[in-house]
């Protein structure tokens, strides 16, 4: 993630959240925060409680970010921001908190091959879309991102759903002259189907990481058995047993392979049947 990426991300984040750009140069960006961004980034909960209690006019902070110190004119001071810096982490968290759950409607295409299509032809069907993060965990770790969608009318599923959605014209407003189909499958049922699909996907993965971790686990458990067996020749006591149990727990904790599946974000998407 280079500085171009970071700058682009920041600018979009501030723009979307209605912050005001005061000054921009080749190496820096000065921005006056909006209320919601100020609350997420400046860590002054007491101030915001005060404003809300008293109804005082809120005054948000101004921040200057430095992307390339060499290109910053004399006299401008700010905080350097790069991938890995605490500030960017904060902005990521703010985005994750504020970009979790959407409901969107596909906008009717005005024209197909130059021919105006009357919009009242359209009926949109509801889809559940989820971006998942799958974590493979032992003493090591790897992530996999999986995006899936399911038609709440028919149960039909679609992979790389998010990548598909990104090509469409979507809006939170239901367009005029457009109707929506009622869902046939509940959100919960649909979610369970997506989980089945994910299990199916996971099955296709290479499991050497788990097998190897399990080998290490077995080897170290053997070591523990031997060690405490010998130790107990000298002293038999309850303390030694407790210590051994603790050690076995530690080894399992360290190596036992497991998989965690959690959503990044999700939503209900009303989509035009024809385009799928």
């Amino acid at each position, binding site marked *: 993630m280079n500085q171009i990426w970071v700058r682009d*991300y920041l600018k979009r984040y501030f723009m*979307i959240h209605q912050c005001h750009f005061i000054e921009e140069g080749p190496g820096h960006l000065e921005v006056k925060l909006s209320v919601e961004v100020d609350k997420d980034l400046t860590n002054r909960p007491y101030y915001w409680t005060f404003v809300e209690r008293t109804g005082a006019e809120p005054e948000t902070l101004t921040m200057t970010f430095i992307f390339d110190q060499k290109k910053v004119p004399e006299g401008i001071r700010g905080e350097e921001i790069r991938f890995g810096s605490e500030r960017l982490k904060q902005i990521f968290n703010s985005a*994750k908190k504020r970009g979790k759950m*959407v409901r969107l409607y596909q906008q009717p295409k005005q024209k197909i091959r130059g021919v105006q299509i009357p919009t009242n032809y359209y009926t949109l069907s509801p889809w559940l879309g989820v971006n998942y*993060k799958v974590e493979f965990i032992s003493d090591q770790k790897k992530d996999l991102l999986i995006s899936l969608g399911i038609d709440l009318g028919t149960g039909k599923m679609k992979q790389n759903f998010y990548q598909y959605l990104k090509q469409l014209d*979507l809006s939170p407003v239901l367009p005029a002259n457009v109707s929506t189909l009622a869902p046939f499958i509940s959100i919960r049922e649909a979610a369970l189907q997506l989980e089945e699909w994910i299990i199916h996907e996971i099955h296709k993965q290479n499991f050497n990481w788990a097998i190897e971790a399990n080998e290490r686990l077995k080897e170290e458990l053997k070591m523990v058995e031997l060690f405490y067996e010998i130790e107990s020749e000298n002293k038999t006591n309850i303390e030694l047993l407790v210590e051994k149990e603790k*050690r076995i727990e530690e080894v399992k*904790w360290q190596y036992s392979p497991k998989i965690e599946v959690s*959503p990044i*974000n999700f939503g209900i998407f009303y989509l035009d049947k024809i385009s799928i």
Partner: protein
Amino acid sequence: MMQHKKDRTYSIKINEELVVPIHFHQQWIYELQSSHSQNGPWDLWDVFHLAYQAEEALQVKDFNELQCLNHLPNLTPFPHQIETAKKVLNEMHGRAILADEVGLGKTIEAGLILKEYLIRGLAKKVLVLVPASLVLQWTRELNQKFGIPAVAQKKEWMWEKYDIIVASMDTSKRNPHRNHIMKQHYDLLIVDEAHKLKNRRTKNWEFINNIKKKFILLLTATPIQNDITELYNLVTLLKPGHFGKFNSFQKEHMKDKRSPKNKELLRKEIEKVMIRNKRSDKKIEIKFPKRIVHTIPIELTPKERELYQAITNFVKEHYHKFNGDLKNMFTLITLQREICSSRDAAFITLVNLFKNSGGNETLKNEILKLVQIAKKVELQSKANEVIKLIKKINDKVIIFTEYRATQEFLINKLAEQGIYSVPYRGGFNRGKKDWMMELFQRKAQVMVATEAGGEGINLQFCNHIINYDMPWNPMRVEQRIGRVHRLGQTRDVYIYNLSTKGTIEEHILFLLHEKIQMFENVIGSLETILEKLNLDNIENNIMEILINSKDEQDFRSRLSNIGKI
């Protein structure tokens, strides 16, 4: 993410003996259902993209590749440090002894490993145990260099409240702290100066052994000091049973306490749990700047010589008289040391001694005589020599003295010559210290400092040190040099020692220079040398020798015998 009781867990059977659980977080289903039935609230599609991109950027795509290097804007680790971190993560599975020689950056290696585990989500609760004097330094480094939100443990309630804590080992092992620690599960435990765990029968060892931990790093520059058993004990903390039981370890690996049976075999076994980078390794890219030492001989003027002799005689004469009166004996030691520094330093002590001598008229008269002699000294040879030296160096210089009176005298003297200097002392508050450092870096040519220890004076931009007077304690000398000769110093370091001929200072310098070779040794190894020389209370030893020596020659030869057993 929190485990929710309505979550679902499946299992995947990999083979006959391995079943891997899959845990699905399902809280989101309820959130979506609720928004769906209540027509909101909904988030923005644009922000939805930002959230996904953030996750994409943070995704750990690979089991083995280090992620942390992309997350460290304030640090460029050396190749051997990166290699060490990779090895601990991928081959040692997070339980290792980091035993690099001093100065190669064990702290950086531990920081990299910690950062990597935090990024991968494999560690959350972390405890770093260090000597009390290093707690703040560790906390600061983890925060500034690694962006790790570590806090220094101060209050009892902090054990539960904070995830990443730096604490002193001596505090932690005592109750009530011990009880709190034993209740926790630490994903990672880091122990600095781990050679304190070499004995299995100590409270330290037992304490570390009992802490519940997933990963553990033991940091020490001296994994073996005396006895191979020490290594066995360290390894047993990491992996009980790695070397089998002690008897079989003894049989297999030890010829006697100090020598292994089969060096090669033992080395192979050790390499599985310990990494030791040495300065002489080819792969080490750190270049340590050299220490270049100059001794500047100073010839006293007849008047200065007279004062020095008078004071030395006075000290010798009264030292025995004051025997048992510790406060007065201490004053005499101070006086003897001060007169090596400057007339001004000794002057204040003489005045105080006069005030405190009560009705003792003989003593008062003697002191008055000394004061008279002191007043006759017009020219201070050392100061003149220093001014010549500074003009010749023509670069930033830090002058160390033990005494405030000398400090003030020097600053005035330098100002007379048009040399701008700033003071630095322990009594300054943080803000003033920072201000003085900044002035020194930006405006002043000289800093005159009375304090070498303490936190946060890093003067890498300066590479000339003048020891205006010599502390009698080698650790203090090393602290002075350590301010500029440390990681980050790119130029060779020049050390100028002023040595007044025919005074005790000349002998002290001989002891430090020739005997302990303290100016040539790099950071840290001093402790080992002092331990070897058996020099526990060096200041008192020197004073004893001084008082009991018949003449200079006797003094010199007794001094040479220091440390000989």
